[in-house]
């Protein structure tokens, strides 16, 4: 079972985040945390005329999905705390879009859990991106590589193939 002391913060927000503030909050007062890893995703330009991304999500399910993935990470890795911040709304190239940070006693669990959480988030958390290029919107397609990235972690309760969604 999860350590009762596992810290978790899940935030879905339009506003930007400050990495150092999030890391400070995650580590504060936890003298047994010997490592903190973080991944920050940025909005990458997708070509000429890249204007903005519009991010939509499923309020309620998003938080539940991330909560579930943190439970699974805590079962697999010896971690002490997790912070996930995901932005929604309109974002322009270069802006921060997502943060996953993990604390643990020793570095390996923090590195691995951070990567595991990002792989889960990419294919299981209900977010959708629309690229606005020269004023024209286009929904982004899911990538098969992201499913493959999650599959290498083995059997995952509740995880469903994404890019090859069921027909019918």
């Amino acid at each position, binding site marked *: 079972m999860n350590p009762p002391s596992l810290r978790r913060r899940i935030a879905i927000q339009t506003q930007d985040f400050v990495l150092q503030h999030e890391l400070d909050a995650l580590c504060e007062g936890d003298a047994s945390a010997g490592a903190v890893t973080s991944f920050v995703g940025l909005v990458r330009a997708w070509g000429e005329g890249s204007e903005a991304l519009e991010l939509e999500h499923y309020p309620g399910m998003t938080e539940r999905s991330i909560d579930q993935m943190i439970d699974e990470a805590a079962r697999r890795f010896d971690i002490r705390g997790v912070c996930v911040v995901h932005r929604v709304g309109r974002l322009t190239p270069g802006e921060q879009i997502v943060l996953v940070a993990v604390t643990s006693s020793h570095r390996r669990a923090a590195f691995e859990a951070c990567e595991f959480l990002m792989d889960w988030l990419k294919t299981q958390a*209900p977010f*959708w991106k629309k690229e606005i290029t020269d004023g024209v919107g286009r929904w982004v397609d899911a990538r098969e590589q992201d499913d493959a990235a999650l599959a290498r972690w083995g059997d995952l309760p509740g995880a*469903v193939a994404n890019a090859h969604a*069921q027909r019918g």
Partner: protein
Amino acid sequence: MKLTVRYFARVREVLGPVEHWTWSADAADTPQTVGDLRAWLVRQSEAHAQVLAPDQGLRAAMDQAMCEGSHPLHDGAEVAFFPPVTGG
């Protein structure tokens, strides 16, 4: 039976964010599974048929958890249909 049906991304753009459907207790066409519901919705309008057609690679959730089409429905369930997710 009453169901709340939510749509997201390109499906939402065509059908709107939410629908509420009710079947009387003796209705013969009451869907039993999430897949039944999708097939039933396809018969409700041209727009539903277009975006929920079997060849549209969609995912589904019931009560805010991802599920397969074989997942059984219950009265009061919240079902959602949406394209593959693209967060992160």
